[in-house]
């Protein structure tokens, strides 16, 4: 076979791989998710349903109503989450974007945590419980200790990370020691953590607010412990975003560049082979769960120290669970989770302005669910768009090697 022909063949192969690979699939999944959401908006729209009654005499009415409700709905989402063109000043117009960043930050941090366990072949469904444990520790430091500014924030942040990591490590330990499945352990601990947190906030000696109203609630974080505003007092965006971005960098370095990450990935790829190669798989599980929960702890600190309102049992805001969808959409990679977290953060930021124009923002929950459903079922996406199946031979890798390697380096 001539070299030219070989080259052509591997190029065709590479195109196939790009089509069947992660990026295309992810983009198509997101688009399909929005399409499914649009169908629900149309289906529940009154004008559309009325127009359906005389569909055959004037089909344009139904079509018009459908287009209108979808463009209004997603238009409101854009105005609420990215850029509000109706605002009188530029400062106000970009406020939605800062809200997206603020609400996306904890999703990114927690998403990294869940993504880490996916890479090790574990399922951490316990984001909620770990987040709550992180919040217990962070809230305790923020409300019960007196420390100078900056130091207080840092100590509270570290406390949040440690609190969450302790619970994660416990799950890892129980799994490694007894072989109990981490999914059941983490789901049970979600409930235990929630009731424990509620108990602490009912008890004046522990976390309950000073002027107790009878409902479980903690004091707001001390001013010295609050996360400082990032771009002025006009926006609620705070340093939580910076910590989330730092977490992305740490995650990337940890997973892609460090020895620990190599060990984690190796166990995820094939635990038996890793064990044969001398890696202590049980210890790796404990480490992975602790690290995972540690990232969730960053989100916990964000919830405890982000706003000057005392936390309540519902302050976990379902972030631990949403983080699963973030990690799935982000393909468990640092940059992917960053983008996925921002997308779902935008959903949270845009929800109120959809409410205003009378479209239930709950539709975004459907979009979110549909996106991850398509992500979770690659064959389904391939079937819908008739994409070629993933090939086993790694032609893309071969091309990359030829382009980027020097002098036959491995």
């Amino acid at each position: 076979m001539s070299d030219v022909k070989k080259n052509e063949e591997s190029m065709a192969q590479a195109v196939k791989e790009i089509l069947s690979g992660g990026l295309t699939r992810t983009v198509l999944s997101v688009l399909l998710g929005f399409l499914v959401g649009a169908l629900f908006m149309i289906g529940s729209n009154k004008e559309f349903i009325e127009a359906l009654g005389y569909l055959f005499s004037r089909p344009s009415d139904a079509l018009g109503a459908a287009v209108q409700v979808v463009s209004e709905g997603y238009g409101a989402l854009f105005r609420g989450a990215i850029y509000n063109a109706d605002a009188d000043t530029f400062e106000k117009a970009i406020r939605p974007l800062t809200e997206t960043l603020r609400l996306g930050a904890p999703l990114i941090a927690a998403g990294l945590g869940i993504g880490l366990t996916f890479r090790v072949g574990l399922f951490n469904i316990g984001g909620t419980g770990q987040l709550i444990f992180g919040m217990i520790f962070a809230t305790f430091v923020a409300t019960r200790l007196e420390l100078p500014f900056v130091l207080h924030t840092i100590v509270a942040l570290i406390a949040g990370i440690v609190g969450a990591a302790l619970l994660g490590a416990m799950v890892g330990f129980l799994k490694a020691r007894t072989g109990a499945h981490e999914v059941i352990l983490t789901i049970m601990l979600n409930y235990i953590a929630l009731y424990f947190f509620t108990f602490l906030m009912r008890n004046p000696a522990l976390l309950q607010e000073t002027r107790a109203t009878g409902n479980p609630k903690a004091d707001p974080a001390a001013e010295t412990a609050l996360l400082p505003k990032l771009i002025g007092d006009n926006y609620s965006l705070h340093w939580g975003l910076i910590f989330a971005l730092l977490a992305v960098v740490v995650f990337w370095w940890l997973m892609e560049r460090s020895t620990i990450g190599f060990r984690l990935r190796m166990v995820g790829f094939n635990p038996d082979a890793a064990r044969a190669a001398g890696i202590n798989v049980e210890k790796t599980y404990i480490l992975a769960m602790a690290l995972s929960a540690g990232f969730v702890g960053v989100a916990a600190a964000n919830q405890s120290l982000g706003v000057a309102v005392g936390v309540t049992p519902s302050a976990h805001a379902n972030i631990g669970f949403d983080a699963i969808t973030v990690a799935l959409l982000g393909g468990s990679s640092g940059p992917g989770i960053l983008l996925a977290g921002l997308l779902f953060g935008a959903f949270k930021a845009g929800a109120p302005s959809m409410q205003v124009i009378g479209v239930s923002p709950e539709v975004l929950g459907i979009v979110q669910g549909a996106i991850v459903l398509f992500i979770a079922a690659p064959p389904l996406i391939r079937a819908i768009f008739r994409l070629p199946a993933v090939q086993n031979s790694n032609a893309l890798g071969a091309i990359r090697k030829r382009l980027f390697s020097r002098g036959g380096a491995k």
Partner: protein
Amino acid sequence: MSMNIQTEEKVGFKAPIVMSSLGLLVLVLLGFLGREGMVAFEISRRTDVVQLPAIDVDSSTLGIFSGIVMIAISGFALWRSMQNKRTPIWVLTVYGAVGITVLLGWLAAGATVPVTFIAGTALVLAVPIILGAMGGVMSERVGITNIAIEGQLLSGAFMAAVVSSITGSFTLGIIAAMVTAALMSMVLATFSIVFLAQQIIVGVVLNVLVIGITNFLYQQWLTEDGENVNFPGTLEIIKIPVLSDIPVIGPILFENRITVFLALVIVPVLWFILFKTRLGLRARAVGEHPLAADTVGVNVARTRFWWVTIGGAIAGLGGAALTIGNAGAFGREMSGGFGFIALAVVILGRWHPISAALAALLFGFSIILRVWANQVSPGIPTDFITMVPYLVTIIAVVGFVGKSIPPKALAVPYTKG
């Protein structure tokens, strides 16, 4: 009967240790250090045909007595362990019943315990968990992990409420609930059997999707037009003649809605099919060793598909029990984690229908105890009572109460060589 593989496993001493420590805790905390005051266990309602007098006991005496009984049962469990035999389910049930009774007596020191009300409500609350767990047993026994029980309960609850309201027929509502949840199971089964997708991920994703869809429809449709589409009322309470006149167990078991009766029937029937018929043997073979089952001619893919699907239908019935079987109208995310509890119950009951149903009752009791404890003796940290079943599940999963052995091929996709 007990010619299972499990008998080959060595029965450990962890269960007797945990049981005797709990008994000791009861003896000391609820007995010697217990609360003063008489407790009246009201075992007959005023409307009952046969009236039995209330049983009056001293709260701390009950604690001491129950503690001793619990320790005695632990001794029996220890004796069984020494002979390398498992403790029978009914003995554990008695142990659990004594434990719940002493807790009731401790909470209600100086007051009365309405026995039939508490046990009856616990059963009604447990029904969605029981049915969800039966769905879980059916799919896990053939080797498919079903995390989507939560979504199946929620979709069942939604469909039962909406279809019953619109058509005015509870039968259609129940059918719609079962069909919807079965369809969800078909998605899960197809993804796991045909596409070999990660079962846990598919389950989680289905939950997210159902929560999203029901939240949206609830907000957009049910709140605006609630009178027409979300006002089903509840099923009629059926009194089985003669049986419902039996003191204590009559009102608890034989005076209920059809959803409760169905649950009480499905559990033993599933046990019979699973352990006494060829159908069940094949299903278990598929879950334990699909290759062997395939070799002797069992169609692994088809068996898995239908068991998971029918399990989904049963979970959907559990959803119907939430709305038209108890609350009436549908509420946002009203399954509130019952599906995850069902998942725990499956493991707690070691993939056995009857043990799983009993474990579900434990959760039912914990829910009603929390509500009732707040009324009868405010100030008791009820958060801890609510925590107990979850802690028990962890203890069980971690293997302190005898090892729980899942079906061998659980969550393992099977491809024909």
